[in-house]
């Protein structure tokens, strides 16, 4: 009985623990790790807004993050140096906190989103993750070479007639949607911890890009599995346990 009860949340989180550390490697490559925090907050605000409007929260969260990911490009020239992500983060956080403070039903969901209550994941969320994660990994693999080439040789990338916007918008959208999905299940900080810490640790020692991806993936998976067990054992919210575990990993290795 209890095995069945926790299998769905475990598998839901497992899919995200595979995707997020790999996504984080490309965010770190582009020096856009703040994007993870920004998209998480925007999707939390979108979910709460949808709840208040009588719509499914997950759809609201995903739509808000997708809008932020695609819309960011429109202001890219005026908001350089990560300003776009800082503004998105602050706007998302403000809206989410105000909604939670003024709407009783939003308060409950707000707590769940910020605490990271993975154990409440349903089979519908598991299905969404089971479909989305393989698609996201496939898109990431398709974009990988262009993302690396555009970073190392921007002039070479352009002179070969490769268009930058499909890669940029494609990646922004992918990051936004993945973070929205993760926020709905792992919570804002749980998702951010899985995007930020495994690549940060992996990049210190890995000998090449492939090894960096592999190390990041393994670190994320190990941290997730241990955190799932510990949070269950201690009867604590999952998000903070995962975050503190990854911080401890980070401090030990660093």
């Amino acid at each position, binding site marked *: 009985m209890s095995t069945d009860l926790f299998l769905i949340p475990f598998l839901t989180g497992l899919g995200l623990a595979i995707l997020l550390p790999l996504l984080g490697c490309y965010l770190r490559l582009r020096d856009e790790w703040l994007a993870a925090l920004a998209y998480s907050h925007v999707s939390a605000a979108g979910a709460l807004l949808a709840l208040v409007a009588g719509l499914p929260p997950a759809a609201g969260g995903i739509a808000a993050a997708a809008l932020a990911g695609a819309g960011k490009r429109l202001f890219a020239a005026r908001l350089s140096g990560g300003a776009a992500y800082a503004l998105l983060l602050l706007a998302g956080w403000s809206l989410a906190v105000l909604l939670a403070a003024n709407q009783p039903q939003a308060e409950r969901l707000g707590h769940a989103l910020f605490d990271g209550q993975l154990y409440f994941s349903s089979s519908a969320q598991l299905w969404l993750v089971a479909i989305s994660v393989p698609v996201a990994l496939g898109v990431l693999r398709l974009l990988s070479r262009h993302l*690396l*080439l555009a970073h190392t040789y921007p002039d*070479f990338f*352009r002179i070969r007639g490769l268009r930058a916007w499909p890669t940029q918008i494609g990646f922004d959208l992918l990051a936004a949607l993945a973070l929205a999905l993760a926020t709905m299940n792992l919570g804002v900080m749980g998702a951010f911890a899985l995007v930020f810490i495994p690549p940060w640790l992996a*990049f210190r020692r890995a*000998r*090449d*890009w492939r090894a960096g991806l592999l190390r990041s993936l393994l670190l994320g998976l190990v941290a997730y599995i241990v955190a799932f067990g510990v949070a269950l054992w201690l009867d604590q919210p999952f998000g903070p346990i995962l975050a503190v575990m990854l911080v401890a990993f980070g401090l030990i290795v660093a």
Partner: protein
Amino acid sequence: MLRAEALVVGWSGPATSPIDFSLQAGEIVGLTGPNGVGKSTLLAAFAGRATVFSGCLELQAGLRLAVQTQEVPPVDGLPLSGRDLLGLTGASPEGLPPWLIDRVDLRLDRLSGGQRHYLALWAVLHAPADLVLLDEPTNNLDAAGVRHLTAHLRERAREGCGIVVVSHDAAFVAAACDRVVTLEVRDVD
């Protein structure tokens, strides 16, 4: 494969004096002149980046271009090896000098500045291309690196590749190039 007549290029305004220029397949042409004369800007115009203000610039249709700028690929803190870098542009490590071939699997941010520069240059020089544009390729290279680069430019040209080299290194230009075009300082009205 490349022809320019009375070409004046620049960024926000004209930065070069009018220049006539041509390049055939298999030819290496050096671009020299004092600092600020617009050598790199002219190369950027060949690459389609700088603005053509007057004159004409024609590139043969369907050319595959490769360009090396003076900016070093930003790889600090990233787990990117030399082999990763070569793979991105489609260059082969075959023919790398002995002092670099056994380091091709090391991370780029663990190599010396000269080694990293040569690998970054090699990745462009040996990318599948018909026209290669190089901006100050001998920066950060020691004598052995310059000798190896000179020999390989010749080899690349023998394969039919046209190469334009911007350099302030007169000895290198004299040794590597078939022709040298010297840019004149632009008259300012």
